[in-house]
């Protein structure tokens, strides 16, 4: 099973980025093998609809769960339509967040954690 984590930088030792739609990087981890892939989020600078385009990109990667800080309503609706679970309120090192998820310590959110445009710097 693949999970995606919003990331401040590439690699498992980077910090979890609190924003979803406008985060700069994603780290996608295969929980079985712990193999990972880091990718830049080209949608981070979108004029509008960043959450939707980022959610679409993540869904197309075959990800089943997203770990992030906050997730707005449009991104949440898009991820839900694709059957992707969202865990919000995640922070710290990516490696630790993945371990916490594997240990069953993180629970999926039933709703978006913030309103629209929350992540615009």
């Amino acid at each position, binding site marked *: 099973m693949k999970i995606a984590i919003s990331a401040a930088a590439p690699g498992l030792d980077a910090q979890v980025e609190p924003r979803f739609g406008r985060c700069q990087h994603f780290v996608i981890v295969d929980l079985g093998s712990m193999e990972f892939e880091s990718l830049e989020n080209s*949608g981070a600078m*979108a*004029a*509008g*609809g*960043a959450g*939707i*385009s980022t*959610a*679409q990109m993540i*869904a197309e990667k075959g990800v089943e769960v997203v770990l992030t800080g906050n997730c707005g309503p*449009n991104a949440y*609706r*898009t991820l839900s*339509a*694709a*059957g992707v679970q969202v865990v919000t309120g995640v922070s710290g090192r990516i490696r630790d967040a993945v371990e916490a998820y594997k240990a069953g310590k993180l629970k999926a959110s039933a709703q978006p954690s913030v309103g629209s445009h929350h992540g615009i710097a």
Partner: protein
Amino acid sequence: MIVSVASGKGGTGKTLVATSLALSLSDDREVQLLDCDVEEPNDHVFLQPEITGSKAVSIPVPRVDEARCTYCGKCAQVCAYHAIAVLGNHVLPFPQLCHGCGACSYLCPEKAITEEHRQVGVVEWGHSGALGFVQGKLAVGEAMAPPVIREVKRCANRDGAVIIDVPPGTSCPVVEAIKDSDFCLLVTEPTPFGLNDLVLAVETVTKLGIPCAVVLNRVGVGDLGVEEYCRQERIPVLLTIPLDMEIARLYSRGIALVAGMPQWKSSFLELFGRITEIVDERSRSSKR
């Protein structure tokens, strides 16, 4: 002739200048004031116009017939605003983000997308004495000001003088409001903030090929930065308005400057005269 009254910075005095310029002209000529600051139109406060008509403004947004949709994703690919997403066998339109460009319905290979109208605001028109008045109101919570601004401008009567009160800033609504103007007045204040945003506004009108000049408001505060910039860039300063308690008091009570202090009328007529000279000179030199 269309004269738009803009500024980079908000709160510099666009409404003060636009309302007093329009009122001064309306005594002896045909003139319209168009309030294109559709997110917060407030010219009506100073004019107390009688509204005689109104019209809803809508944009076309996609409606998907899921019976025909094959979830090919073409609509999501072509949408520049991420206003429609396709995931597996779900298609999700986001009407609040839609600019109404029509690309999704035009390019859908299955003809599964039709358009329905979504109201984003309203245009109202009427008059205040001899002055023609039009204003746009963007519905609360909506983000798409340009369609409302376009509809306000459609009411312009080019046979007379048209004064446009432009929203602040330099983004899409500003460009929509000032484009096709014969002249743009940039209202600013003599502060570093005023200068910073004036430079952005000058860049915007220059790119649009519209001649501009500056009205300097609240003179007596700040520094000489704006005046130095205007001298360097050869931008005429056509009117200065001092920082004055009486002007501020009138404004705070919703009284137009020339209504409360009629001695200002000649300054606004002179301002319009200078604008007319610049526009005429420009049209002569472009014909040469």
